């Protein structure tokens, strides 16, 4: 089964059909999507700004990530589920939208940036955990993350202006 066939199957599925044809389901799901994505980006910025050495300077990086990231992940899971539901309503058309594709690509890069940070950058974190000015590699990870998430939101908003909904 190729991707387009999968997207067509999603479109024809009872879920895709319900989201597409119900007048109020799409806006309700979209509202939850917007709420969860603002929580993802806002909470991740708290960590990014700390890595950049701009805010929460008196708080150890590892403690801050410990209290913020579980919250970020919960919101992210909610954003992914609601995003999937919205996508299913018009899967084929979304899959041809450049802003949608850019948004997915940026999410992958943001994810890789996070993996690199956890696996490589944060090695030896005990040496700078309490420092108000993290080393360059950590500042880069924070700055990149901030830019990527701003770009994700930007692309997301532009999807709505480049797709004639139904």
């Amino acid at each position: 089964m190729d991707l387009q066939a999968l997207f067509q199957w999603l479109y024809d599925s009872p879920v895709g059909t319900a989201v597409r044809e119900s007048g109020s389901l799409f806006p309700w799901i979209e509202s939850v999507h917007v709420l969860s994505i603002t929580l993802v980006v806002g909470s991740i910025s708290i960590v990014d700004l700390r890595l950049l050495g701009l805010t929460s300077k008196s708080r150890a990086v590892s403690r801050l990530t410990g209290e913020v990231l579980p919250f970020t992940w919960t919101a992210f899971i909610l954003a992914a589920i609601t995003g999937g539901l919205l996508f299913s309503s018009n899967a084929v058309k979304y899959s041809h939208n450049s802003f949608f594709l850019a948004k997915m690509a940026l999410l992958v890069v943001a994810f890789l940036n996070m993996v690199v940070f956890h696996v490589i950058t944060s090695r030896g974190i005990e040496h700078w955990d309490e420092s108000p000015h993290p080393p360059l590699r950590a500042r880069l990870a924070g700055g990149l993350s901030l830019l990527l998430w701003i770009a994700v939101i930007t692309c997301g908003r532009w999807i709505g202006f480049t797709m004639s909904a139904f």
Partner: protein
Amino acid sequence: MNLHAFAEWLSQTPLSLTIQNVSWIIPTVQTIHILSIAIVISSVFMVDLRLLGVIGRSQPTAAYTSRFLTWIWPTLVVLALTGSILIIGEPSRSLENPAFQTKMVLLILAMITTAVLQRPTFKDPAYWELTTGHKISAGVLAVLSLCLWVGIVFAGRWIAYMNVDSA
């Protein structure tokens, strides 16, 4: 002049016509608006969830109120500015829209709730932890605040789905 006439007049002003005719303005301003909402809503969640004892119990509530409540007011100014551009660009679609009107009422209530939460912490940062009574009040205010801000985001998104007769 009633609201409808005002919206009609506003939509014919040069500024409104510019916003209507330059296609990138509204999506760009909406993007800045959403990013600002991300700052406000996340700050609100951090403070409210701490007041409810859901997160960060290893630190006093004062650390949270002082770190995050301060972000809300300057960001609300950005939201007011970007929101105004969106209103000027689409006066009828916003001003006469029940979802928009609901959003504005919720916003006023949310701002009052935030001010009520913040005010006593200027005098005494530990105010919400002083007594059991204060803790309970803080919890009630936190739940109220969460509901109001979530309501604002929902009402904001619904503006796009409420049809306004622009006759």
